[in-house]
């Protein structure tokens, strides 16, 4: 979440938490999470079971991997990112290797031009950007054509919430004819996105 959203939550919990005396009856106590989140969690389990976790573990023992990149039978490619540190370069390398025209960048202050995206590309819009995001990562949908000359970028930000939990947020965007300045692949190995055409 953004700083604004995190601050707003802290205020809500502090000033209105006491208003939450009861859980709505339609939300069973054993199912505190929403359906969407449960579905995401189930997806992560499926990834682990299929043995396609490609990320190294940063936690020792047998913890969840820092990241995972998985291609599903329908062709979609799902990236799950639990720890950004040291993970973006290998994730981008894996995406390039799989032919996925998407680059992941850190949404941080030195990547200010993330705000100059030509298209917000949210998952619930009529989109031309073939990426949907979740609370754990994002999914590339190859059946949605990527407009020529559009770099598809996923910005990822991770920080510690006030409750001590690590919070990761993702946002998609498109850049006409160039990737943002902080996209690692533009400096070293050329764009991971589609071939750049002349502006329309």
């Amino acid at each position, binding site marked *: 979440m953004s700083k604004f959203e995190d601050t707003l939550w802290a205020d809500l919990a502090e000033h209105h938490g006491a*208003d939450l005396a009861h*859980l709505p009856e339609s939300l069973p106590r054993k199912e505190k999470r929403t359906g969407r989140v449960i579905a995401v969690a189930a997806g992560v389990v499926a990834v682990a079971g299929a043995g396609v976790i490609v990320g190294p573990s940063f936690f020792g023992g047998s913890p969840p991997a820092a990241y995972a990149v998985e291609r599903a039978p329908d062709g979609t490619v799902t990236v799950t990112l639990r720890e950004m540190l040291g993970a973006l370069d290998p994730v981008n390398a894996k995406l390039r290797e799989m032919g996925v025209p998407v680059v992941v960048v850190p949404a941080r202050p030195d990547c200010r031009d993330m705000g100059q995206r030509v298209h917000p590309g949210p998952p619930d819009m009529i989109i031309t950007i073939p990426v949907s995001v979740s609370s754990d990562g994002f999914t590339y949908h190859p059946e949605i054509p990527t407009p020529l000359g559009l770099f598809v970028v996923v910005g990822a930000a991770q920080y510690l919430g006030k409750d001590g939990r690590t919070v990761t947020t993702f946002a998609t965007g498109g850049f006409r004819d160039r990737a943002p300045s902080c996209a690692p692949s533009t400096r070293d190995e050329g764009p991971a996105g589609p071939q750049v055409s002349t502006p329309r």
Partner: protein
Amino acid sequence: MKRKQAPDRTALEAFERIYRDHVTDVTRYFARRCVDPHLVADLTSDTFVRAITSFATFDASKGSAKSWLIGIARRSFAAHLEAANRGSELARRAGGRRELDGDQLDELIQRIDAERPGRALLAGLAELSDVDREAVELVDLSGLEPREAAALLGLRTGAMRTRLSRARGRLRRAAKENPVTPTQEAYAHE
């Protein structure tokens, strides 16, 4: 002095999950309507205060949390417009505006900027009725199911689909003649 009741931790966690999943949807809803980051912040805050204080009435069997929150956002915005028309909004905001630091202002300005295509899309539907315009926004921009949008607008699902079809057709024709934004281009190529 009234002592505050301790929150139900389970309820707080459940609401936090819904908040984290949908706060962006709500912020974007207002960013399509306002270009003032302070107003977007205030309306987003107002929506979640209304939501948290009425959480006990949320019925997941009747619709998604997102649909519930967008419904509250609509009412918050309607209340804002009504207050603005009465001239009382300025005074209220002068006394109760949410404080934002530079980072938060930047975030909201970026969010507002990112919603430019959505605002242009809505502007392109200016000749439609309010209901048709809201139908397109709730389904195509906010991502609600047609049945959820129908419930919010007090329509039957069939009537909603008819309105959507009509509005999209109109937008398609307009986009083919003069595509301005990527979102409108998406309609042009449908």
